């Protein structure tokens, strides 16, 4: 009915967070006195947050199309057909709190897994680079 609204709301929050974080990361200056070989590049957290934004915005947009397809979203106020009568409204809110929240949680959990895997890979690569430089 309107389950995509929950991940879309999360996407708004994470997009703002990514923008703020990116500004903060740009303002930070990094100085390094060693050789270029000793520099280990890491994916910034704002970029990793960008993955979550793409997952949430993309998923919400495609799900919104499905809701338009089924006539659950209309281009006139109140935009959601279920918001018209109280019974459908209650059903819609129930769906948002169950299906919508689960969608947002699953996408966030998958993203957290991606972040953990990329951090582990980056640490491994850094260790290998340091070992190679010592030799």
């Amino acid at each position, binding site marked *: 009915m309107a*389950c*995509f609204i929950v*991940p879309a709301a999360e996407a708004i929050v994470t997009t703002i967070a990514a923008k703020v974080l990116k500004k903060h990361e740009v303002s930070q200056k990094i100085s390094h006195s060693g050789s270029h070989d000793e520099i280990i590049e890491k994916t910034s957290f704002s970029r990793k947050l960008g*993955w979550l934004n*793409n*997952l*949430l*915005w*993309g*998923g*919400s*947009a*495609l*799900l919104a*199309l*499905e809701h338009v*397809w089924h006539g659950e979203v209309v281009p006139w106020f109140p935009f959601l057909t279920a918001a018209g009568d109280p019974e459908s409204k209650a059903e819609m809110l129930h769906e948002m709190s*169950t*299906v919508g929240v*689960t*969608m947002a949680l*699953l*996408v966030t959990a*998958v993203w957290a897994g991606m972040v953990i895997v990329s951090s582990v890979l980056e640490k491994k690569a850094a260790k290998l680079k340091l070992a190679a430089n010592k030799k």
Partner: protein
Amino acid sequence: MTLLITVFAAIISTIVWYKHAPNDDMHVGTLSLIYWGASLMWTVDAVFEYAELKEEFFHPAAQDMLNDLFLGLTVVALGLIIWLIKLLIKDPKGVVKGALLSKKN
């Protein structure tokens, strides 16, 4: 059917992204994340639907399957349109910018 088509689109776009990694000039990574996001969300939808319908979930009517097929293809097209718009705005190869500048000159 919509979920299945989106999952296939996600797998294909991920393979294309992986083939060209770490170079992602064409932002194929974004396209694959769009499809994976939708696939995850429709998986949740399917689980809730299965909990409600049980075995009936696996026996959809032919008319519903056809409708879902068209919806799946439309969803894939929308994903491609979103990706294309992002690609043209970011313009990593400077093609759009170059074309606009050459017209002005």
